[in-house]
């Protein structure tokens, strides 16, 4: 039948797919730009709590993270809540050193504006969090952030 004959003169021409790569590239670039490669491997589970009054952290380069939660590798670290600094499990005494180390990475005038973001698992007991806060106070790192997910207020 003439209708399905590609070379029939009267039929509409095939849709050009030449612009398809362009469209896909556009999407590709969007994802490339918006992707933030994970900087550290988390060795602890951190399911963040929900909160209504959260604010976005504006200057990410001034933020250092402290993770607290149950270790993923239970054979090595057990099941009690642990602190992770950089990419290793640390103990409470390592915090002061970590703060100094993070401060050394920044310019001098930025040090005052640094924020320490606590990424803490919902089910962590407050005891360890309080200890960490106490350590931070000792080294005058007073600006902290409790990382939490946005929840719409009822």
């Amino acid at each position, binding site marked *: 039948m003439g209708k399905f004959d590609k070379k029939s003169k009267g039929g509409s021409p095939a849709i050009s797919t030449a612009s398809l790569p362009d469209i896909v590239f556009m999407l590709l670039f969007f994802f490339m730009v918006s992707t933030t490669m994970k900087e550290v491997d988390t060795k602890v589970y951190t399911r963040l709590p929900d909160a209504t009054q959260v604010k976005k952290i504006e200057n990410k380069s001034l933020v250092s993270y402290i993770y607290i939660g149950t270790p993923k590798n239970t054979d090595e670290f057990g099941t009690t809540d642990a602190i992770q600094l950089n990419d290793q499990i640390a103990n409470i005494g390592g915090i002061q050193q970590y703060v100094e180390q993070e401060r050394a990475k920044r310019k001098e005038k930025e040090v005052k504006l640094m924020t320490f973001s606590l990424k*803490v698992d919902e089910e*962590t007991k407050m005891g360890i969090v309080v200890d960490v806060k106490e350590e931070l106070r000792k080294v005058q790192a007073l600006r902290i952030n409790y990382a939490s997910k*946005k929840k719409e207020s009822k």
Partner: protein
Amino acid sequence: MARRELQEINAGSMADIAFLLLIFFLVTTTMEVSSGITRMLPPLVPPDAEHPDVKERNVFIILVNKDNQLAIEDKLRDPSEIKQLCMDFFINPYNNEDLSERVLYTEKIEKLKREIIAAEQHENNNDNVKGLNEKLKMYNSVKDAFGNKIARSSGVVSLQNDRGTDYGKYIEVQDQIIAALNELRNKLSNDTWGEDFDDLSLVQQKLVKEVFPFAISEAEPKKFN
């Protein structure tokens, strides 16, 4: 030699390559949102420092125990009640004896003026006088902005938790207290300038913050219950 005909490169597979990359990025992307509640920790005080005297009515005690139960001013409460109770505590509309004391800025200015005169007589502490004058300036601009009836609550919310309290519960309580303060700030901003607190200029925000500071005190956790 026969000239080879220049063949056009088939661009059809370009889309496939791009798709492959696209899918790779789609999978690896974690739209990480860094959001959270930013708070300032109180600086470490030397152990011999004197504790400031705070009247009992001005302290709003919220206790969270190891079983995540909540007590506000010695009564067992639900977390959803915190916000309203906190707001009532700070605003104290009927001047209730048990809720926080509210001091008019006009009174505060009078008191501060007397303090400045007293400080000026001891001439050795110039820094002190300077600090007091700054404060007076602040108070005056608050009074100018919000009128003579503006008062500041002397109340402080004291959040106390056990070492065994869940972090999630702690954040929920913390969140509710901040929600209360944010609502108060927003209300004042809206009444005065018709805009939310976040939309105000920095100078205006500073004035609102002066009237409603984040007065949350976190005591070291105790073992209670």
